[in-house]
């Protein structure tokens, strides 16, 4: 029997809908045991621990979740995902939240990570390959004067060792790659 419902999806359901190809258990399974927070190597730099964030999602506290830096501070090491006793995949939940924040334009403009992601995405749309020096503007001023000096020193050393490319690489069939991507997502949404 087909049932129709006009009910608006909850925030948790919205987040889970962004994990369409993943196999993780629903966030309602979370028992708040904090194993994910305990094994996370970046937890002390997060506004909320992964456990807290999942709790906030389940409680529907969307504004609090979306203004948290937690999901942009995940390094994708998947330690949490291996250890969750309930089969939730917290690292993939972090990805779902970055998607949500990019597509809904809710991210904090002071954060480096969303800008870095956009630069990276555009670079590959243009050339088919990643080009490390192209991402420098995203972060070079974040470290203050000491950071700039240190970054330049490293760049010069890498250059001297022949490890820094001056010209970005490019695949031959960029046009076809773009056509492929356009069959999955509207290009103007990501460019």
């Amino acid at each position: 029997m087909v049932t129709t419902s006009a009910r608006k999806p909850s925030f948790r359901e919205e987040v889970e809908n962004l994990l369409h190809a993943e196999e993780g258990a629903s966030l309602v399974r979370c028992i708040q045991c904090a194993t994910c927070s305990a094994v996370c190597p970046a937890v002390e730099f997060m506004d909320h621990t992964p456990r807290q964030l999942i709790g906030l999602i389940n409680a529907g506290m969307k504004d609090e979740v979306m203004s948290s830096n937690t999901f942009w501070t995940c390094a994708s090491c998947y330690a949490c995902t291996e250890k969750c006793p309930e089969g939730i995949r917290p690292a993939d939940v972090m990805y779902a939240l970055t998607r949500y924040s990019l597509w809904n334009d809710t991210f904090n403009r002071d954060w480096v990570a969303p800008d870095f992601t956009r630069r990276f995405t555009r670079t590959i749309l243009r050339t088919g390959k990643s080009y490390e020096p192209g991402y420098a503007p995203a972060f070079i001023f974040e470290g203050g004067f000491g950071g700039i000096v240190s970054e330049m020193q490293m760049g010069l050393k890498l250059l001297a060792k022949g490890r820094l490319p001056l010209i970005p690489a490019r695949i031959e069939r960029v046009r076809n790659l773009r056509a492929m991507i356009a069959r999955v997502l509207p290009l103007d949404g990501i460019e």
Partner: protein
Amino acid sequence: MSRYAYYPGCSLETMAATYHVSSMEVAHKLGIELEEMEDWNCCGATAYSHVDELLATVLCARNLAIAEKQGLDIVAPCNACFKNLRTTNLAIQRDADLAEHMNYALEADDLHYGGGVKVNHIMDVFVADPVLETIRRKANDRIRGLRVAPYYGCQIVRPRRPGVEPRDIDDPGYFEDLLVAAGAEPVPYPYKLRCCGAALMVTNRRAAAQMVRDLLQSAVDSGAEIIATACPLCQTNLECYQADVNRLCGTDFAMPIVYFTQLLGLALGVGVKRLGLGKELVSAKAALAGRDRTTPAK
């Protein structure tokens, strides 16, 4: 002779060129043919997953289709490329709707993916049964007794899908086995599976610097003379940013970080230059000098 479709990944053309040349040298010594994939594209790293799951999937689907056209299984040296190609492959293989969607996209590049490719990390190839024995037989004394911290990184073992891989991911030992076969002495390295910070080095320097500091300290405490890595991002964070870590954390590390293929190459008699040794920012010369029986240290 075994042949593979070789997927170098973007870093191996730039910052990690030494990983590429040393992989090629070692494969050659072992009679393994790495045939570079035709017109491969970026795996999307973490950025594409940050934007959209299907977007991340389509990038890897193209590479899988190119390998299938070559009729070969994939070998990827980078942990992140390996994880992206591998998880995409498993997703396409188990989800017919996703496969159909991807093949609709692949048509735009005259490609099709039938799900017939296996994705290997390059280390998998060297620890596979007959190859490991060949290394043990051929290894010289060049790195004999060298105390190496085997740094696996994250995405070489995680995330694993239950039932798909029998390998122990909590405490794997195959990297250590490989180092022993080559004559080195792997030290017990408690942080061998802990994250290097990955792209946080760009987006949250303080967090990444602290993560790298912990990894370096753990290696020092383990008595390691050198850290061997299997991933260009790990190598870059641990080595190129080591000076920045010292600056931010008030430490004084001078730990050389090399690719495991560079050590294997030495053990198999490949020259220092051909392995790209000497291009590191934290010199490995002193650590490797004491055992140099083929080329005198300059």
